[in-house]
Every structure is written in structure tokens, then in C-alpha cells.
């Protein structure tokens, strides 16, 4: 049996706009991945706990509330505390280029996607990074 790529798709914070997250979940499913969709209004603690139980390779975080500079670093910190640094984390939402740079350079988010990003490209990025790790 092959090992499938497992991805947690979650929405940290308080905004309820989950259309983007659902589009991504669907696209990753169509790329052959197993997507654990946890829904809206997740705290960083809930996200990391779910990622641990589900033993995911990837966490995809969708955030449109503007609180990304608080919530995303917190997720990364919790992952480090659990010894889960090997989990690939990607983010999507309304995130400025400056913020995206900081999230990538300083906090270790692998990639940040804005509006109009290609779902195929996101799936390919995840597949390539997971293949490189294996």
C-alpha cells in the first residue's frame, strides 16, 4: 500500500469565510491527497492537536481576518513545542507581501498564497515538497 499525503485544512481565528478553504480541500482531494477538514474558528491549539492526532504531512491554513501575524506564528511555535517541525505549513488569504516575507523567513511558513493563486500549483508544490522529504 502506498503512503498517501495527509493534509489538515483549517481556518484559524474568527472569520467565517470558508469558501477558499473548501476550494483548496477539494483541489487537494482531486490531486489524490487525504484532506482532513476541520472547519472554521479553530484556535492554534486545536489545529496543532488535530495535526498531531491525524499525523499529517501538511497543514494548510486559510485566514482572511487580518490576524495572521498573531495566529500563524503561534501555530508554528506550538508545532515546534510538539517536535513537529517536519510538518509542512502553507497559508492562504489576504496577506501582504511584507507579512508573507516575514512569515516565511522568520517563522518557517513554507509558502503564502493570495487571491488568484492556482490550486494546481498549490497541489504541485505540496507534492514536490513531500516527495523531497520522503
Amino acid at each position, binding site marked *: 500500500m502506498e503512503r498517501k499525503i495527509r493534509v489538515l485544512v483549517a481556518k484559524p481565528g474568527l472569520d467565517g469565510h470558508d469558501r477558499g478553504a473548501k476550494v483548496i480541500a477539494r483541489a487537494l*482531494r482531486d490531486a489524490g491527497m487525504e484532506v482532513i477538514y476541520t472547519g472554521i474558528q479553530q484556535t492554534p491549539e486545536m489545529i496543532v492537536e488535530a495535526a498531531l492526532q491525524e499525523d499529517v504531512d501538511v497543514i494548510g491554513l486559510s485566514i482572511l481576518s487580518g490576524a495572521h501575524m498573531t495566529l500563524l506564528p503561534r501555530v508554528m511555535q506550538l508545532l515546534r513545542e510538539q517536535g513537529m517541525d517536519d510538518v509542512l505549513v502553507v497559508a492562504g488569504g489576504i496577506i501582504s507581501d511584507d507579512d508573507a516575507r516575514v512569515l516565511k523567513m522568520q517563522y518557517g511558513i513554507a509558502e503564502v498564497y493570495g487571491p488568484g493563486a492556482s490550486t494546481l500549483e498549490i497541489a504541485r508544490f505540496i507534492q514536490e515538497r513531500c516527495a523531497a522529504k520522503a
Partner: protein
Amino acid sequence: MRQRPDRVELADAVLNGSRRALARALTLVETGGPPARALLGAVFPHTGRAHIVGLTGAPGVGKSTLATALALHWRRAGRTVGIVAVDPTSPFSGGAILGDRIRMQALSGDPGVFIRSMANRGRLGGIARATGDAVLLLDAAGFDVVLVETVGAGQDEVEIAAAAHTTIVIEIPGAGDDVQTIKAGILEIADLLVVNKADREGADVTVRQLRAMLNLSDLSGAGWTPPVLAAVAASGEGIEAIAAAAAHHLEYLRVSGRFADDTRKRAEYELRVVLQETALERAQSDRAGWKMLVAQIASRAIDPYAAAEHLLNTPGNVAM
């Protein structure tokens, strides 16, 4: 092989309650193969303690919500709960969206609960190939109750009955006429019948029809008549009665001797599955020889029956 000691180490960590190790072990048994079997072999002596409860029913009847309500109830009673939630794999892409956690958020952050989502990976029957192995791991990790939520099941997904001690079948009001209730299949495997969303119109009719269906069948000799219980899982109404009925059913299994019978049946089933897998893997381990046999069968040089005999008689293929 270098892998063996690793697997034993992982097994020890699972038995010692490491959640990370448990999560990794679950991935390993989903992947399958010899390392998974080595791990399962190491934890097997520590299994057999949990009450395994299956939850099944059509999509949307409230399986995840009921699982959550039951888990919250058991947690209040001081019991720990492991959950395996199965969802379907897309037959087109091989991917899956596993969405049962959405309705299980009330259980988040509780160290006495462990939830694992699982794709059925094309396996029919309502559960995945590795669901039974996942249950073994949660059992070994010390969870008092292991809940298995099947994929949204129709009339034929009855494998859960073989995997669980107590099978709860969930219905909702107004789904079909009373002939639906006497068809073969999912209702036959119920140890408990729950009419969920009982605040909807027609709930009492559905309860009555299900009870009438049970009276039609001669279950008196079987010793256990499945209770039909109304519930509103979303508000917690009726949950206590369901938990009590599940406990009562387990007690019935023990007292009647059916527990031992079922355990033997499950052991036989497991042995059969593992034997098939192992024999097939060994027979295919010589890839060139396997391909040659296949080609010979295709060209009608030999028949598949003689080929299978030959493979099983090859030393090493089925040796223990």
C-alpha cells in the same frame, strides 16, 4: 532487517500512552506491510480490554454528532474514548475529504479523547481495510471505549458488525416506508437502534415501525432484542439512555457467553485476513517468478489453480 527494533520501540511508546507514537502507529498500519504487522504483533497481547462500539447509518443521520455526544457522556463518567471516523475515498482521484472532525470540536483539547480520521481507500463494507488494526492500537493505548464511525452507509455496509462488540444503527424520521425496515441489511446488524433528530415530525412513527419490524422477526431465541431509542444528538437528548443500553448490551454479551463466541469469530476473521495478505505478499515477493506464472496462465500453458498450488507449495511462501 533494521526495522524490527524500531517497531518494538514504537509499540512501547504506544503502550506508554504517547499520543504522537499512537498517531504514527496509525499511519503505519494504514500503509500496511510487514512493518505494520510487526507493530501489531507487539501490541496484540495488550488488546482486548476496550468496549468497541460501532456507529453506522446513512449520510447525514448524525453519526459524528452522536459520536461526539456519546464521547462527552463517557468522559463525564471518567472513561477515555478513542474514535476512528471513516469517510469515503474518491474512486477517481484516490483522494478524500475527511470531515468528521468538524462536528467533533467539543472534544478538542481533551487528553482523554483521541480522534483519527480514516479514508476507506476504496474498500467496500463501510470501513477501511486498516480500521480493525486502528481499533487494536487504540485498545492497546488504553482507551476504555473505542468508537468506530463508518462511512455513510446504506443497506449493505455491514462489516462494522464483525469489528465491533456493540453496533448502533442510526435512522432518522420519515426515511422510507415500513417495507424499508424489513429489507435485509443494515437493520439486521443493529444491537441498538437510534432514531436521531427525534424533534422532527414523524419520529414516533419511525420508532413504532422499527419496533414492529423487530417484533416480526423471531429474535426471542437470540436473547437480545435491540432497543429502539429516540434521541436528539445535537442537544444531548436521549444520550444517557443510549450509553446505558450500550453498557447493558456489553453485559448481555458477557453473561450469555456470546462475548467469547464473538471474540473467537473475530479472531478467526483476523487470522483469515492476515493469512490472505501475508500469503499474497510472499507469493509476489519473487516478482519475476510471479510475472512468469501470470504470463503462463494468460497463454493457457497452465491453469490458475495449479499455479496457486505451486505458489503455496513453494517453501517460504506460507511458512510461519
